[in-house]
């Protein structure tokens, strides 16, 4: 195999990989504007940034999943050939995704060599594949049976198999995309050991993680991305966690999202010690009438799971949810709805709308009991109710009978909101209410939420966009890996505090 060269030698070295001024757009959305990344052999390089900063897009360009629009990539001094995953693998790029994609029905050995099975002549040599896999596992210091099937092995072991696969392809660049997100602390330790071994053997390892403590414990250098651009690269030795957080946040919180100041009323909904194993733990907060409570945290921190549990879509192991002091039974969304809860889900296409049904039908989907007579829906009542809501929310549509899928993303979101507001809930839960919609509609959604709060509704808003959380929330619950890290008041909250809590740091 072709590596194990300048291990550990001091800079300056020749870079192994250089990505310069990379740009990539999807439709109208600019995922990468000016991204730069330089990797040296024998280093572990952290790639950092908020959700949506462009890390994944950049790595997928390297993996051959996306082709870049502009910029250039050189690997070992030669231009990098883009276009397919196979091309990338052949050039020595290996990507280990957060959720490894093994083949459950195949053996570990075949997983290692999938698509490039070892052959003698044209026939597959199973013994040789098993032998080489065993050797690779040993080199990584992990006991795994190459003849076992992949079905059911732990995520940590799956990653080891992926890494073994990378080594077997003679990869020189090994990218690990949030590998520790689903690992226990002992498994993380083992992975760190493996990564350090790889570094010492001369590989360039890219490590994506939201956990700054891990980055500082493991990596040599870091690159921070924000809004599709590279903010900068630094040696870990020359940086502090505070620097990094500042680089990640960067922007000022704009005044785009003003929540009206309204008197905060009594507690409407209280959540006490809510826990669900493996998802979230000990979540407690109150929401008052007229209040917007932000739920902040990184993607995967358990926010959506908490609100789904509150609304009764998922069950929980322990804890209580009470509305006006009265307990809401777990696991019964219909009851929660009757009592005055509403949940606007995160993924409107999958969970929020009946895409092929008419706008009216969607708006009144929550109201069929109210609008029907002898079990028949009355079209006339449907349409008039829907038209009212359409006007209130300024939905732009041609015909109420048009299928929802014909509307723009922003207008679809308004229809989902209308659907739930039509139930006149006391507590409105919105999960990522403005994801993927344009700025104008965003402002309208914010105005609407603010007005509803003013009218005495209690609102819980899950959002990954810091400016939105900061602009709209009266108080902010910050979660990290299923745990509630703290509740910040509007007056004390700022981006750095939220990021620090969300990534596991301590506020100084």
């Amino acid at each position, binding site marked *: 195999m072709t590596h194990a060269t300048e291990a550990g030698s001091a800079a300056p070295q020749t870079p192994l990989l250089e990505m310069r001024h990379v740009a990539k757009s999807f439709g109208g959305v600019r995922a990468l504007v000016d991204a730069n990344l330089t990797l040296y052999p024998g280093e572990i390089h952290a790639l950092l940034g908020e*959700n*949506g900063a462009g*890390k*994944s897009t950049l790595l997928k360009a390297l*993996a051959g*999943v996306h082709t870049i629009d502009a910029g250039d990539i050189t690997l070992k001094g030669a231009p990098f050939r883009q276009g*397919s*995953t*196979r091309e990338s*693998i*052949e050039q020595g790029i290996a990507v280990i995704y*957060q*959720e490894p*994609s*093994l*083949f*459950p*029905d*195949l053996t570990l050995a*075949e997983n290692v060599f*999938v*698509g490039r*099975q070892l*052959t003698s002549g*044209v*026939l*597959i040599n199973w013994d040789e594949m098993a032998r080489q896999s065993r050797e690779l596992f040993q080199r990584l210091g992990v006991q795994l049976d190459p*003849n076992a*099937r992949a*079905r*059911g*092995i*732990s*995520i940590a072991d799956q990653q080891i198999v992926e890494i073994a696969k990378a080594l077997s392809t003679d990869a020189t660049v090994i990218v690990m995309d949030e590998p520790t*997100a*689903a690992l226990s602390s002992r498994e993380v330790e083992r992975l760190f050991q493996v990564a350090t071994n790889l570094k010492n053997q001369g590989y360039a390892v890219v490590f994506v993680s939201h956990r700054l403590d891990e980055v500082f414990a493991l990596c040599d250098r870091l690159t921070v991305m924000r809004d599709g651009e590279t903010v900068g690269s630094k040696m870990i030795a020359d940086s502090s966690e505070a620097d990094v957080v500042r680089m990640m946040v960067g922007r000022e919180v704009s005044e785009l999202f003003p929540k009206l100041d309204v008197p905060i009323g009594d507690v409407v909904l209280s959540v006490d010690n809510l826990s669900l194993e*493996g*998802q979230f733990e000990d979540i407690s907060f109150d929401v008052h009438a007229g209040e917007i409570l932000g739920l902040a945290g990184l*993607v*995967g921190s*358990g926010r*959506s*799971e908490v609100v789904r549990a509150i609304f009764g879509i998922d069950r929980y192991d322990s804890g209580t949810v009470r509305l006006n002091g009265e307990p809401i039974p777990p696991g019964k969304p219909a009851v929660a709805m009757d009592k005055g809860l509403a949940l606007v889900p995160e993924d409107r296409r999958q969970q929020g709308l009946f895409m092929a049904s008419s706008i009216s039908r969607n708006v009144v989907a929550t109201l069929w009991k109210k609008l029907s007579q002898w079990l028949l829906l009355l079209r006339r009542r449907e349409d008039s109710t829907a038209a009212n809501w359409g006007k209130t929310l300024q939905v732009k549509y041609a015909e109420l009978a048009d299928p929802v899928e014909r509307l723009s993303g922003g207008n679809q979101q308004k229809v989902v909101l209308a659907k739930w507001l039509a139930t006149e809930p006391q507590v409105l839960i919105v999960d990522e209410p403005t994801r993927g919609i344009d700025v104008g509609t965003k402002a309208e959604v914010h105005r609407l939420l603010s007005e509803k709060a003013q009218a005495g509704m209690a609102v819980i808003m899950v959002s990954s966009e810091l400016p939105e959380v900061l602009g709209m929330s009266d108080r902010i619950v910050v979660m990290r*890996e*299923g745990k509630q890290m703290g509740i910040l008041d509007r007056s004390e909250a700022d981006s750095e505090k939220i990021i620090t809590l969300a990534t596991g740091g301590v506020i100084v």
Partner: protein
Amino acid sequence: MTIVGNVLKARELPVFLAIVLVILATGIAKPTFFSATGVVDILLGVAVVAILAVGQTFVIVARHIDLSVGSLIGFTSFVIGDFYDKGYGTLGALLGALAIGVAVGAVNGFLVAYMQLPSLVVTLGSLYIVRGIFSDYAFGRTVTAAMVPPEVAWLGFNRLFGIPYLFLLGLALVIISGFVMRRTRAARDLYAIGSNPQAAELAGIPVARRVFTAFVMNGAIAGLAGAVLLGRFNAANANSALALELVVVAACVVGGVTIAGGSGTVWGAFLGAILLQSITRAIGALGIPQFWQQAFNGGLIILAIAFDRYLNSRVKTTTIMGSKDE
């Protein structure tokens, strides 16, 4: 791992035991069941289904399905007789059948692999289209024994040590394909595709090309198998092999070729074909009303699926933190 260990762990073992059980139990109840004609009957019945099940396994393993094979084999069995009768010779007739099989397989494969249409729907469509063309082609005509190429008739009539050549032909195909499925890259790619299509794409496997090839191979096998069907019955008409595709899929499923793709062997499908055929004959021999046979086979399919599910769930899975992509 020892060979014994492998055999004991194999998904095919219970199918094999079931076959033994059915045959022994029936034989004890009705000793005539063991007569030479009884066994030969089973073997002849198995041959056609087993050959089609081999081709079907290529497709199912890649998480697809091909329902057009019943119409296809019926059509080509007719074409072989008709072509021979028209003087194209045995070779010409077989080449014609092969060409039709490859063409239908290529159309199915193109629509599924390159146009990304669901194979269930595509092949349901081609099932009717091929049967329609067949009916029109065969309109009012039948292929009679006199029109069957002599080599084909010979295959159907003759035996080697009492075993019909048709069965041996099927067995040979199973042995060769079993080897190919285990030892060639293209075939292993099909397993990978069926096991995890997205990951197969990421691993650089030429997914579309492999799936296309699987359909073409299956079409070619079904096309040529027309000769086997014709050799067995010595006749063909527009209703030949009607609904046979369902028996073929059933044989695969019963034999452990998981409909969700990724696992199963041609040996399993072969045993599945034998089990279904044995049960059919056993029910006949025992004088149980024929409609029970269908219900019984249906029950067996569901049992097989439940068994596969049970096997998979027995594997310990580790729970993961819920996570989403960016």
